[in-house]
């Protein structure tokens, strides 16, 4: 399964900053970036290894492409690479319907990892009421699993609180996070990479975030995993898990914002591995421990 993430947001919200932040902190994850916009691709020069037509190869193994021949073709080209990306990231144009774009992430072999929408804290009230783009921006916000209220350092604390509260009230199916320079943990933005240890998340600059994890040698049933995902506490911004017996198909749990999906995948390591990410002061690991015990205890039938 190739993970698929859409980055949306109006002109000036900070999408390109966010993209560069992700590309500089992706820690070995091989990303394929599709830029669905006009004009030059603004990748930090320090990251660029070489350019080849509409394709930019980065020093960390990631690639960026423009869409010269349609979306499904661009995805196919990326996947046909001898060393294909494990995660495709789309930088949407400022007026794109991000929800429509996200549907490419639900094609066979793909897994929609999330829709991340960035807004500029300084212009939020004006832009959501703008004559020309107001409805488009509201549509983008409604589609966002995660809404990043960016540039909060450029407005006052009161305004920031008001904006966060307004966004969370208007878009209850999204999770709203404040940030500066679009700096957030990559594991939160892109999910936990498929090839790495579940609990891995770089700390340091992201002391505001906490993780929780759960490991068991036993596989769980789909019903149990679905029950767990549905009861996940709203303080969980992201969760991911796999569960597999020694043979047969495996289960994949993905949660982002308020969206939770359990699907069948071809294989996963035997056992059950779960990881969740949330804000340090909100994520209640004891509640999650209890929920896991409740859902996955052998005595429980299902």
């Amino acid at each position, binding site marked *: 399964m190739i993970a698929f993430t859409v980055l949306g947001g*109006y*002109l*000036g919200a900070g999408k390109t900053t966010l993209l560069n932040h992700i590309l500089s902190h992706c820690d070995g994850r091989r990303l394929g970036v*599709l*830029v*669905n*916009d*006009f*004009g*030059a*691709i603004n990748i930090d020069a320090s990251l660029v290894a070489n350019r080849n037509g*509409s394709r930019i190869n980065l020093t960390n193994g990631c690639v960026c492409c*423009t*869409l*010269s021949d*349609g*979306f*499904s*073709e*661009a995805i196919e080209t990326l996947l046909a690479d001898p060393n294909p990306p494990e995660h495709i990231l789309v930088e949407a*144009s*400022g*007026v794109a*319907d991000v*929800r*429509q*774009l996200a*549907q*490419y992430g*639900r*094609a*066979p072999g793909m897994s*929609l990892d999330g829709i991340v929408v960035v807004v500029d804290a300084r212009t939020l009230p004006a832009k959501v009421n*703008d*004559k*020309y*783009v107001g*409805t*488009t921006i509201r549509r983008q916000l409604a589609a966002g699993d995660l809404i990043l209220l960016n540039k909060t350092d450029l407005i006052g604390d009161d305004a920031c609180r008001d904006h966060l509260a307004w966004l969370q009230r208007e878009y209850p199916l999204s999770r709203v996070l404040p940030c500066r320079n679009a700096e957030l943990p990559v594991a939160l933005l892109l999910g936990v990479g498929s090839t790495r240890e579940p609990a891995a998340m770089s700390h340091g600059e992201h002391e505001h975030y906490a993780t929780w994890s759960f490991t068991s040698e036993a596989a769980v049933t789909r019903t149990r995993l679905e029950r767990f995902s549905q009861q996940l506490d709203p303080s969980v911004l992201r969760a991911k898990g796999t569960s597999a017996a020694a043979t047969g198909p495996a289960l994949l749990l993905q949660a982002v914002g308020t969206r939770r*999906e359990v699907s069948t995948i071809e294989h996963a390591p035997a056992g059950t591995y779960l990881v969740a990410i949330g804000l340090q002061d909100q994520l209640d690991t004891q509640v999650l421990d209890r929920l896991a015990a409740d859902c996955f205890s052998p005595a429980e039938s299902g």
Partner: protein
Amino acid sequence: MNTIYPARKIITMNPSNPEGTHIAVRDGMILGVGPLEDLTGWGDYRLDTTFADKVIVPGFVEAHAHVMAGGMLQHPYVGYYDRPLPDGSISPGIRSYDALIERLREIDAAMTDPAEALLAAGFDPIYFADQPRLTRHHLDRVSTTRPIYLHHASGHLATANTAMLALNGVTADLRVEGLGRDAQGELDGELREPAAMSLCKSAFREIQRANMTHQAIHYFGALANNAGITTCTDLGGLSILSERSLEAWRTITSEDSFPLRVVQYNLPAMPGAAADFDALADQFVALRHTQTERFRFGGVKFVLDGSIQGFSALLNPPGYYRGEDHGQLLAVPDQLKAWLLPFHRAGLSIHLHCNGNRTQDLAIETIEQLLKEVPAPDHRHTITHAQLTTQAQLRKMAKLGLCANFFTNHLWYWGDQHYEITVGPERANALEPCASALREGVSFSFHSDAGVTPLGPLHTMWCAVNRVTPKGRILGPAERITPAQALKAATIDAAYQLHMDAEIGSLEAGKAADFTILEDDPLNVDPMAIRDIGVWGTVLRGRPCKAAG
């Protein structure tokens, strides 16, 4: 030697010399129009009586069509209305699901390879609004083994049969939102928007690529010729971005038998085309130095919103009458001026696709800013479609020197739907306001947007003159114009919009010998019969090009 053609009547669209009985031509150039004795003084001549009983008008100019008109006809057409084919025959409109199934069964029976997919185009569910949606089960009645893909007229939808879904591994457990489902959650075969449509990969791509073949261009030329068009835009060409497309156009338009002068308006802002618009503007100006008699570079086009019948045009209040508003700009308003500036500065003509009147506000405001920054006294930039143009917008457009290119065919093809569903009675009556544009002094032409509707200036004229719908409504009688005003819009005013009015668009000494040869006089027949006038063909730069069929 000169050629002099006598005709039943020659309508020139030259106000100084409006009519004549003879037209003299030398080397593709008009020497004059008048009685024979006014023309013999130009020297030895041959009298060609081919058109002696016919009516000659200036060659029709179509300022908004697409090569897709030809491309789409490489697949069977199954739309609701009759569609002329390149060979001059008519593909009859499909008015019921049963007729659709019957037609597809005939095509299926004629195919030799049982595994080959059947692709058809032109279906539009808006005409079947009183029936349950078309599903894969209807198409399964054609074949349960041959994959079938029905591409809808809007370009945003398709319907696949069960075999097509199975071939592509499209199953009910996929969560793609554009997959249509029945009440039980099973797939119904409808695919909405490209993410879902492209799941049927090879069919989707074959439809997309149909417009890039040589046959598409040949068909386009034949369709235009059959409709009496001598100069036609491909308004949304790709040659600025694609060397392959450019070569195909150059090769085919240089063939002696090609019956059409093509004017390309390129789309610089194709999604994903990482474009430096300054460089593109330079490239475009350079391309104009390579243009030939039958392959011209007019300017650029930007698509700013969707369509009214797709509810994706951006409307000012009170918005859509019924149906959910999916109004969407396709350009970032804060970037639009910067996008247009390089082309404007280079002196290139800009056509802006605006179906919604809110989008048109943006276009007009942006052009006003552009003109303040870089004044251009004779820019002739054009709002194309301009369907919901308001009176205030016309007044502003007149001041700014903007032209309108009205999509008058909508009055017929979707007029009843606009009245009943999309915008409601008042605004349906104000669609394509040709009479108001005349009054306010906005120069306009009208178009087919072919292949959205068929190429056919007599039809677009007929719509502007009569404003009649299939259900017999007259939409906004006050906006009707006269046949003479309509003919002007289809010839000299369209040429003006393309900055070609000194060369084509009227029959006048020194201009290109481009005529359309009609079986009857559009200014004297019953106005309701204008669209039924026979087209013998055209004369393009002095060369007769007889219509097929």
